[in-house]
């Protein structure tokens, strides 16, 4: 048996408060879940603030945050870790999940349905009363400290039958429903994040809501808060509002000429 070396990546802490405007009791709920060591599932459409919320909570709880964007080539090794060879030595390098467990961090698996089902299974023992991570490669069992927290997210709006969370996975989590905030809250978010006057933000939010009315009627998704913030940022940078919205909303949402034209009609109706 040769000597084995471990490398565990250093985790960054979030020092500055990320802007997040609560829309309900999600902050209290998350804190309670963190206190009880419960894993959390965030459901909601793209760009509605899930990732920002997790960043905010990591800052609030003073824990490091590791975010993994899941994709269909993500393997168990990508999460847990793998051996590398350095010189004549084999070195074990912790993957993001292992690193988070060791450090008592928050591990955030974004868009978990995109990951392969066999990959998802490795989180099971972490996401129930056992709270352990099994590293089969060298027979290690890492017990999660009380600070470790598992957070996953997915967008239930995707229609694909191939992308659903298995019941055995989803039933380990307490679930929060995220949606776009109500108009006043969303306007203030867009104004703050986009750096535009509230009056402009309100118009952008009205536009956003109108596009969301078209979900399933030609659009797969309406404009997300993130898109509206993009439009606001362009406006703040001096772009004229109609062009800004046309680029960041109308053309971002659809490739179909007729639909893009209708979206531009909506932009003009608002401004």
């Amino acid at each position, binding site marked *: *048996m*040769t000597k084995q070396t471990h490398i565990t990546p250093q985790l960054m802490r979030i020092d500055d408060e990320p802007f997040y405007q609560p829309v309900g009791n999600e902050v209290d709920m998350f804190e309670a879940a963190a206190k009880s060591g419960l894993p959390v599932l965030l459901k909601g459409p793209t760009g509605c603030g899930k990732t920002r919320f997790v960043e905010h909570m990591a800052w609030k709880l003073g824990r490091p945050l590791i975010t993994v964007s899941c994709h269909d*080539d993500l*393997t168990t*090794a990508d999460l847990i870790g*793998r*051996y*590398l*060879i350095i010189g004549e030595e*084999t070195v074990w390098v912790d993957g993001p999940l292992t690193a988070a467990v060791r450090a008592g961090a928050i591990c955030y698996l974004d868009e978990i349905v995109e990951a392969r089902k066999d990959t998802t299974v490795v989180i099971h023992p972490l996401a129930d009363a056992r709270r352990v991570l099994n590293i089969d490669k060298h027979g290690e069992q890492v017990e999660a400290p009380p600070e470790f927290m598992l957070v996953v997210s997915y967008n239930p709006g995707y*229609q*694909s*039958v*191939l992308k*659903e969370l298995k019941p055995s996975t989803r039933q380990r989590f307490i679930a929060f429903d995220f949606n776009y905030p109500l108009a006043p809250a969303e306007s203030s978010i867009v104004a703050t994040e986009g750096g535009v006057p509230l009056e402009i933000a309100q*118009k952008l939010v*009205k536009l956003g*809501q*109108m*596009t969301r*009315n*078209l979900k*399933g*009627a*030609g659009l*797969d998704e309406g404009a997300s808060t993130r898109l509206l913030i993009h439009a606001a940022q362009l406006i703040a940078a001096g772009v004229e509002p109609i062009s800004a919205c046309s680029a960041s909303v109308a053309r971002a949402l659809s490739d179909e000429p*007729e*639909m893009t*034209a*209708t979206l531009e*009609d*909506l*932009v*003009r*109706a*608002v*401004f």
Partner: protein
Amino acid sequence: MVTSHTTATRRLFASELDVRFERTLPGNPNLAVQQRAVAVLEKLNRDQQNQILHWVEVAAQSSYEVAMNLALQAQFVFLQLDSNGVEAWALGALEVKDREGVDAALSFLHDLDSFVATHKYAEASANFIEVEERTRTFIQALAGKYIDVKSYEYAVTDTETLFLPDVLATLPSAADNRRLYRVMASLLWAQTHYGTFTDASNLDEILARYPDADLAKEWLDALEAARLEGKLGADFPGLGAEIAELRGPWPAELAPALARLQNPLSTLADTLALLDELLASGAKAPTMVHAVSVEPMVMRAVRAQKDGDGRPAFGANQEEFEPYPAEYDDGDMGGLSGEEVDLEPGEHPAFSKESQHAGRRDEAGNLLVRKKGVSDTPPEFTYDEWDFRRGSYKKDWCHLYEVPVTPGDPNYVDEVKRKYRNYIAQIRRQLEMIKGEDKMLARQVDGEELDVDAVVESFIDRKNGGEPSDRLFRRRMHNDRSLAVMFMVDMSGSTKGWVNNAERESLILLCEALELLDDRYAIYGFSGWGHTRCEIYPIKRFDEQYGNEVRARIAGIEGKDFTRMGVAVRHLSKLLEAEPARYHLLVTISDGYPDDFGDEYRNDYGIEDTRRALQEAHERGVRSFCVTIDRQGADYLPRLYGPARYEVVPNAHKLPLRMAEIYRHLTT
């Protein structure tokens, strides 16, 4: 423009015109009218004569009266319209005739002034069909719910559908006329949104109280146009500016009222107060290019129907419909109307269902006898049906038969393929992308490249004294989707016409595209007549190839009887489940509401049973997606489809293009 046969420039003389009329209208029953028409046409120049004769000929094919009146009006139309305008006018008359009958067409022909007012700039006209889809989407975004947009003689709403004119030629540029459509649609929606109908329940009575009710109505239209523009402008400044731009300056008559109407707090009460004042002053109502009609009567009619069972139009019809007992043991069809009701393409589905029943009434005698003969063949399958009132299943209630489809025209598929040539190429490219998403398989004994992870591991194993693996390569593998899809197609009578055609075209596009993928798919139609004769029509079974037989069967898909959906879902999801695949997907294509002969399956019962069937399938791992072609509001769909995802395709034309898109979304 019809000028192709203008070779001679000399105008036709009366005797020549007589010959033309006799050729066009053989056995002319009214010589006096013909003489008058000839007298009118004699005064026109040759181009004008030819144009009118052409349209007389076309009109005569459906109505002699319309044809002759068209000729008689010719003396006036050329004074006010150019040849494009005349063509639009003649075409308009024929459309009105098709839609509302001869009397309506005659009054259209004689009310030349209203036509001229909206067709001033015929060469710059915008057509309803050009803007229909875009307007509908725009209004849906504004309203946050589905509101249909249809064409009609003039702009008016019953609060559920916005009606807009077939043609707008009010403004000198075509682009502006198209924008005018959007403006008028917005103002109609504004009537429904800013209290025109809700703030006073008795608008009809209020109007009727004035000595000149017509004038009062004209003023109401004008005042509400100004008030609603203020409301829209406050909420949608850009839209407000667009309305102002298109309408031009306010007419002087309205000037004194504007401040009050466009006050942010104005309500219908302000309009009514101003109406009093203005009518007392005897002022003439202004005409405006963008004016839309405020019609309380239409609104009242809709509201009355809605009160029936909370569902628009449907409930009211239902009350008139005397249901047969579900068992229909006796064939007593006495007292039923014998009039055949034809379904028009795109007709209001609620009415279609109704006419479907009505249509049964005349032929029901025969059909019932035939359909009653079910007992001589034992059912091939029986299924339980969910009775929500009892909270339990009716045991073996549905008798299901597999019935072969009569093959249709074998050339049909080629025609459709030609029609959608470009689109098929496009959707194939998109599906090839799915197919192209090959997987890299790790740890293979052989392959294109080294698997670095595996190499490292085997190196470590060797160093540690373990046995190194020989699986050191990565290999590109064709992506096995392991997907089985069942398409369940509504073949009920209400799909007759455009919906049926859209279904067939969609299936052809899907098959043409799906042949690229290895997904296993099947297509079955469903319809039926009561719970003892539920029918399933195999069009393509899972183990069949998409060949000439399947093509002929797709061509042979036709509207049959009723829509008992639950049993079809149960049967087809059972077939689907039996397919060896990892994912099972059921896609239903229907035109709305489940319904069956008699009263039993209508409304709640059918909805609950369908949802239950989808739920059962869901619990067994079959995922469902329901596509509804429905021009009516779709508020019952979440309840109907329960666990299934769904999409409403509001316009049958859109279905073929949308289906392939939906399929791509569902399976990637």
